[in-house]
């Protein structure tokens, strides 16, 4: 798969003694939606965070659109601009309005004109359904609204790939669906996505591929239907039984 958008080759990472990522090989094609699941501490968040080097790796290489992920400096910043990221805890800039949150990247990084950026931002906020909140501050919004703004903020950079790190885990149950809906729309629109989540409904309807991780390694990869119906490995079955039954 030479035309993969994201390529991870023999990636290893240690936190001191802990071998957090073991020999990870993963290709993500353009327009593909990959859902990563696994028990907590399995390294799934670490994996996704290495793709824009919020976590460094000790071995292996990561390529984005054929380009090797730089380790620091301007090159890294430039590449990060092409990779959108949505965090578990939203991380909206607390001192900026919703609109400013979305325009900051385009204006400061892409050097877009302020009015163009605002127009674009309003369009994106419209798309995620929080346009009427544009002049408020993050703290004034609900969790679900904040997360949708965070998605808009990432989209404003027109990224090649979007990373979602447990985007609904910090949300109250009634707000989960509004965020998932936005993500579903993106998936249908052909956005390349890597999503760490346990939301089975989302995985079933949006994922092209499931990646199951445990103890820092990729244990199993499959399409969602086959994965949920008949996981090949004991570990995956065990995990699935824990999250599905009761």
């Amino acid at each position: 798969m030479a035309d993969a958008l994201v390529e991870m080759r023999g990636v290893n990472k240690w936190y001191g003694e802990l071998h957090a990522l073991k020999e990870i090989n993963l290709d993500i094609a353009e327009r593909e939606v990959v859902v990563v699941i696994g028990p907590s501490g399995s390294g799934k968040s670490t994996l996704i965070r290495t793709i824009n080097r919020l976590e460094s790796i000790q071995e292996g290489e990561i390529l984005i659109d054929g380009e090797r992920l730089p380790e620091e400096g301007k090159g890294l910043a430039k590449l990060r601009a092409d990779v959108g990221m949505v965090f578990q805890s939203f991380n909206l800039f607390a001192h900026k309005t919703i609109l400013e949150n979305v325009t900051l990247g385009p204006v400061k990084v892409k050097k877009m004109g302020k009015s163009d950026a605002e127009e674009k931002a309003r369009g994106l906020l419209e798309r995620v359904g929080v346009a009427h909140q544009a002049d408020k501050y993050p703290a004034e919004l609900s969790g679900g609204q904040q997360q949708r703004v965070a998605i808009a903020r990432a989209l404003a950079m027109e990224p090649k790939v979007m990373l979602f790190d447990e985007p609904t885990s910090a949300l109250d149950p009634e707000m989960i669906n509004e965020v998932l809906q936005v993500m579903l729309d993106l998936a249908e629109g052909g956005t390349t996505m890597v999503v760490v989540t346990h939301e089975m409904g989302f995985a079933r309807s949006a994922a092209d591929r499931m990646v199951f991780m445990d103890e820092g390694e990729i244990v199993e990869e499959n399409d969602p239907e086959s994965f949920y119906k008949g996981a090949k490995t004991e570990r995956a079955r065990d995990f699935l039984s824990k999250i599905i039954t009761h």
Partner: protein
Amino acid sequence: MLEFYTEYWPDYWDGTLVTLRLVVISFTLACIIGVIIAGFRVSPVPPLRSFASGYVALFRNMPLLVVFFLAFFGVGDLGFVFGPFPTAAVALGMYTGAYMAEVIRSGINSVSSGQAEAGRAIGLGFIPLLREIVIPQAVRTVIAPIGNLFIANFKNTAVALTISVFELTYISRKLINETARTWLSLLGAAIIYTVILLFAGWVFRTLEDRYAIKR
């Protein structure tokens, strides 16, 4: 009572000017030192971090009076000879600077790492991240403690009288000797200190309100 103050007003005025000059110079110096030491303390270079922690620990665990005496009697031997006023300004600035560094450092650390990660994730480099995200958020948390530092620094100028700087407290001490009207002499200085601090307190509260409003 009033004629006492009309008569000795020029003395008080001179002392007030010295005190104000001392506080302006030493506090400016403290701000500069504070930024540098705080920068050292959060830097990835181990010796700079150790130096900064050592600096802060040294000044935090010593009385200002000892700092003044060491500066006054020690620094001369290093080949620099300063008069009392510059010595006091530098010693006080270095002393307050240690506290300032702590305030700035905790201001920086009060910004959650998630904010910085989000900034990095949209492609902000080190300088833009500092300018757009970290500093604006840190400023909010440090205004009040910096105000308190200013007040402390202002009151600490009095210690300069121990190395013969003729500031406000020195003046009241001198007037006790000259006039034998102890309480009047002392109260004059106390009133001036109180008035100036009331004003400074108001300024910092206004600043705080202005920057806090946006959240």
